[in-house]
């Protein structure tokens, strides 16, 4: 479900489903809904456009 919301950002039905759980995914009120993880040697910056709707 979460993966679909990231991979299919234009899918409105998936976005509506994800919106129902986004607040629940946050641990802190002002925190992000998803933790983005990579090794410190990671390469590119995150695709902010892709992740902005799901964080």
């Amino acid at each position, binding site marked *: 479900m*979460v993966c679909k919301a990231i991979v299919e950002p234009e899918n409105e039905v998936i976005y509506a*489903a994800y919106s129902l759980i986004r607040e629940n995914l946050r641990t802190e009120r002002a925190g992000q809904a998803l933790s983005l993880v*990579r*090794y410190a040697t990671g*390469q590119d910056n995150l695709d902010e456009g892709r992740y902005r709707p799901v964080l």
Partner: protein
Amino acid sequence: MHLYFDESGDFGFTADRFDAYVQAALISPGSFVEKISHYVHNAKRELGVEELHAAELPDEKLIEICRFLDGGPLSLVAQVTDTHVMTDAQITEHRQEQAELLERNIEKYKQSGGQWEGAVVWYTRHIKRAALASRINNSEYVQADLFVNLIHAALFKSIVRYTDDAWRDDLADFHFVLDGKLPGKLAAGEKELNVLLVPRLGSNDYELVVPTNWSAEPVHPFVAKFGTDGDKLSLNRISSTGCGSRSHTRTLAFSSSTSSRTWSARRSSNPRMR
């Protein structure tokens, strides 16, 4: 408290297209588990499927499932990585760095007079684990490695989300459930997770916090069960008990080694990830 873990995607870090890989946890008070089972049973029967896999369900059905998830006393945690921020080559590079770090650590241990053979055996095993893709491939390595982060996040959220006294009894027991990759035996990554989990969670990178008033009389069941002398948390006491009906379900064993951590007023971040 029941913590269910699963992942989405193969963590193959393919170079020819964008892909995202998600690991997620569903946290449920024990008192709500039966309602989850009932909901899942009915949904599977209605859809005529063996398991509820989001990738294989109609999008509209996901709205209904998410409504259920949001309607009860459930909590969710998820983490994601993708092919933009991590490549297969970088995972290999990271593993080499980890192997070198472990080599340096065991040398320091020996130079400082350390003589416990168990330490040498442990280091040797994990140096090989980190360095040799033949022991565990990059996909399984990174999944096991990142899972530790998720399990800590789920434990942390289990505490902070259910601080109300109404959940006291639910925090007396913890059940960790993973969907196993292979029937009847542990996959390579699962074996490593089983061995590494407690030492990793007990390291400086991970801390847990509980409200200070949980130690006051009447002592909170969580503190009574998992606390030790000197305000320490014993991960060994967070027992693992199987639950669920999925055919390849795994339960995590927190009893493979001794590890404890001082409870802290803050949560540290893992410097190896960001």
